[in-house]
């Protein structure tokens, strides 16, 4: 039993090492990128060209194939960022701080994509690019929360102080996620209710739903890939004075020249 606990402790410690993460992520990354490309391309082509158009909305409905996956990942990504931030302040694990730093711009961009595609979709559907309904407003708040985390991190990086403000903001903001998710059920909103539920079958025709599922998976792979790429750069930056990074840079130079 004691050996088991020791092993878990060791594995946890290794996971927390930026050098170990850099080494292991380098092996996984090419595959993740390939999977991203495959799932996103198939989902896009299928949704754009082969899914039937909507009886009421016509072809503008195809924006769903970007709007829904980006929204999902914006929400999931926020939890990832906040959890990483919590781990960073509670246990002072370096890699968690790096996860939080990398997750912030990715989540902010995905939130922006969700808001932008939603606005563009709203114009032909509802006649307006914007409305202050519950879901859309709370998504805008999410965008500002992401920006706040990014800005706070930059401020502390410049001053070199221990960064507690950004994780705290991230944690405080997590209350927003269930609000976004349930807003279409709790309030009378212009944004339509959820089509994809955990407990029931989706209220969308399978010919429309299947490509959506494919591209949602693609976006998950995209998120992980983008996160890892960003983390690898950040690790090299933070560990730039260590011998393993200097050696790595030296090897890279010899390979490229």
């Amino acid at each position, binding site marked *: 039993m004691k050996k088991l606990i020791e092993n878990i402790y060791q594995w946890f410690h290794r996971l927390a090492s930026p050098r170990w993460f850099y080494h292991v992520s380098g092996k996984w990354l090419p595959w993740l990128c390939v999977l991203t490309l495959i799932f996103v391309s198939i989902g*896009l082509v299928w949704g*754009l*060209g*082969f*899914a*039937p*158009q909507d009886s009421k909305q*016509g*072809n*503008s409905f*195809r*924006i769903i194939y*970007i*709007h829904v996956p*980006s929204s999902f990942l914006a929400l999931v990504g926020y939890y990832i960022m906040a959890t990483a931030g919590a781990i960073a302040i509670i246990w002072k694990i370096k890699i968690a701080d790096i996860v939080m730093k*990398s997750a912030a*711009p*990715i989540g902010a*961009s995905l939130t*922006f*994509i969700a808001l*932008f*595609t939603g606005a*563009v*979709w709203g*114009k*032909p559907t509802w006649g307006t690019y914007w409305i202050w309904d519950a879901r859309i407003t709370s998504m805008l708040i999410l965008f500002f929360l992401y920006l706040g985390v990014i800005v706070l991190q930059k401020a502390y990086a410049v001053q070199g102080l221990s960064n507690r403000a950004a994780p705290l903001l991230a944690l405080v903001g997590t209350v927003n996620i269930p609000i976004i998710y349930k807003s279409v059920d709790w309030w009378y909103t212009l944004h339509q209710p959820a089509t994809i539920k955990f407990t029931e079958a989706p209220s969308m025709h399978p010919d429309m739903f299947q490509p959506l599922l494919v591209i949602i998976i693609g976006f998950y792979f*995209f998120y992980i*890939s*983008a996160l890892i*790429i*960003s983390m*690898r*750069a950040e690790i*090299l*930056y933070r560990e*730039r004075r260590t011998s393993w*990074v*200097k050696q*790595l*840079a*030296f090897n*890279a*130079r010899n390979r490229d020249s």
Partner: protein
Amino acid sequence: MFQFDSFSDFIHMGGHGQYVWIAYFASLGIMAWLFFSPLLRKKNIIKKINKQNHCDPIK
């Protein structure tokens, strides 16, 4: 089965083409930036490390 009668129909998207394509291109552009910007950053970091540590001649 392909939903459009021709390629120009596909671009036209039944009148909604401008909305669909602006949404798609802006989003895919941002996603590409999210992918390539940190790759570039890593390359620059490595270049800087080498310049500082191995006295590379200025390229």
